């Protein structure tokens, strides 16, 4: 099938401001949007800039705004989209070229929640025991691939770039509800600020945007509750 793409192009080296360009490529209906971008870059315009790696929804490189919704280009098939397929970079971070945004602030927020296990003491010789039920408690948030789709779909983040954002809170949740973690106090302190969880207005955009099906708003709600009750 013939597929028309409308791409919001911007290279700060050459362009004063972003502009739309259209491309047509011959594709199979079951091809991914990413296949279309690769075809455009390979055959029509080698200057197109986007990140990609695994091409099946695990590495988190190719999150972008596709027909008005944040998705991974490798996880949406062209047959499931209306044409022309309009693509823009994720909103809220500085665009460095076409669909590539500056992720430095994103990873800084990630680091701010202390995204690592904080131990209470030296580990046993073998594994620490954890019941399947305790393991299940934080299963959902272990799926996060740090693609940025949730944070850049969040109106609270757009209006307050200092907001930690859903992705960082998801990462905090993954440890807050892990029975092996002893860092709850310090992690909750980071989030119990105006720019922490309280910026969340439960708009649910993040849930819709997450390519891993994480119930992000629920996770944020659980962190809020933990703060209100003083325990996770």
């Amino acid at each position, binding site marked *: 099938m013939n597929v028309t793409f409308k791409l919001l192009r911007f290279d700060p080296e050459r362009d004063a401001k972003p502009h739309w360009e259209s491309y047509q490529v011959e594709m199979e209906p079951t091809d991914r949007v990413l296949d279309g971008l690769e075809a455009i870059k390979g055959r029509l315009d080698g200057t197109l800039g986007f990140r990609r*790696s695994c091409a099946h929804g695990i*590495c988190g490189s190719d999150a972008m705004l596709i027909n008005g919704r944040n998705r991974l280009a490798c996880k949406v098939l062209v047959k499931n989209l209306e044409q022309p397929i309009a693509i823009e970079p994720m909103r809220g971070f500085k665009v460095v070229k076409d669909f590539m945004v500056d992720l430095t602030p994103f990873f800084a927020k990630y680091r701010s929640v202390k995204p*690592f296990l904080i131990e209470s003491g030296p580990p046993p010789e073998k594994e620490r025991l954890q019941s399947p039920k305790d393991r299940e408690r934080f299963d959902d948030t272990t799926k996060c691939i740090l693609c940025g789709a949730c944070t850049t779909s969040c109106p609270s983040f757009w209006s307050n770039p200092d907001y930690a954002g859903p992705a960082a809170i998801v990462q905090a949740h993954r440890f807050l509800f892990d029975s092996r973690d002893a860092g709850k106090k310090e992690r909750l302190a980071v989030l119990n600020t105006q720019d922490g969880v309280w910026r969340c207005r439960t708009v649910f955009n993040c849930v819709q945007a997450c390519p891993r099906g994480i119930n992000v708003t629920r996770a944020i709600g659980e962190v809020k509750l933990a703060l209100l009750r003083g325990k996770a």
Partner: protein
Amino acid sequence: MTHTFDAVIVGAGGAGLMAALQATRGQSPAGTVPKVAVLSKLYPTRSHTGTAQGGIGAALGNSEEDRWEWHMFDTVKGGDYLGDQDAIEIMCREAVDTVYELEHMGLPFSRTPDGKIAQRPFGGHTREFGKAAVRRACYAADRTGHMILQTLYQQCIKQGVTFFDEFHVVDLLLDGGAVRGVAAVEIATGDLHTFAAKAVLFATGGCGRMFKITSNALTLTGDGMGVVYRRGIPLQDMEFFQFHPTGIYKMGILITEGARGEGGILRNNSGERFMERYAPNLKDLAPRDMVSRAMHTEIRQGRGIGGKDYLHLDLTHLDPQVIHDKLPDITDFVETYLGIDPVKAPIPVQPTAHYAMGGIPTNADGEVVIDERRTPLPGLYAAGECACVSVHGGNRLGTNSLVDIIVFGRRSGKALGEYVKRSAPAGLPADPEGQTRERLKRLREGRGPERVSSIREALQAEMTDKASVFRTAGELQKMLEVLTGLKARYEKAALQDRGSRFNMELLEAFELGCLLDLAQVTVTCALNRQESRGAHCREDFPKRDDANWFKHTLAWKRGDRVEIGYKPVVVTRFQPQERKY
């Protein structure tokens, strides 16, 4: 721009991150913790370790009796006896402690009812030296690699490891046979940087993108192997490339062997469980090379589904709850890309290029060894898929790639940390970036009619056609001629992107150069090895030939040619036997 570190680690997947943690560990007095930089052409969390699904093998014995000696035997036999048994012994022994270490770092393994790390069966893993399948693969649902990558990155943040994200390493700097550092392109600016270092560790992963149907990321272009090969260091056993049996039809995306570990069955067009004919004992859980050959044979003999070149992976008889709990990601892949619910319908699969058993030759401390006598090149290290210890021999067992990156990432990181403590810094060679600047300039200024993408597509299609599961001298010879043509076209390729910032087209051109070199090595070595062993199957030499070919291949770059040498296989406990399952 020049940076100075004690050591540089190239690549930030499981092996690179584990090595970085190890090299910078310890509360030793100020100044004695080595200064280490980790360079990756991606953000570390984008590395391909994250896509490993099924599990990491270790004889914990959490669900039934298991011993590392059995794991060692399975690995030796699975590799068709080509693996070095001293290194395999180290790997299987240390796998146990390293898995506990991962748990201590916070890795969220799935759990047994009594709270231990959960384990499941995997291809070729058995108890009592081949008697029956054993539950050895430690897993976190079907995203074990994702959890390993995330956990190691988390620990690196905790430990304050220095990262240079989106720095693409394009050259290794040597001077008089000693390591001096690397040259790298900063993707954001296009600037060339020199990293002066006493030691360099390559952990850049595989090169599966030389094939059309592959499970590998678009970025797995063998850069590390290509860079060292061009600097005169040999590559080992490159003819051994693994084809994983269950790639999603036409796309190559991996469906974990764990799906068969949980009871999934491969079926042909008449619904027959054909693996019963090829491996009566282990059936669908035979090693990958055997299953992939069986699948190709079924397809060739007209038993593909609807007469086409695919078969069915059937999970429909499994408890839907098992599929939901233990295989959620592959369920998602199958629904997303095929519109199929694996609970209700079988999955169309075909073998997919998956893993390079060969690579940069190292010893068990990750030191790169550059000749038949295993002489180390001081300060140069490699670990993970880009390296060849060799623990996988002619065919890697499922889960052992994760074991490899963790065990040898740890060992090489430790060795590298100790090396830089005892060695003095040395100056950079004159004009360290000269060669790279010249190479990039040539790529940038190409004015011919060719596009990088069309040459790459031709390479991938031809390699899948002529150098995959079954090989013959005739087809391999033809492939070498094709490669000569593609290399000539590559010299005339032109870029459209003339910019410096985020010029991904330029870096793709560099990557293609690596793939072309590595494909030439792979095909030359495949043509040279006149026997069938592990994943290397020559239809014109269908038997394993221990009398003539019980040896590793080494391949050096000599101008445009590949020169071949050999080195002996290390045998300790297990003498070669016929391989039956």
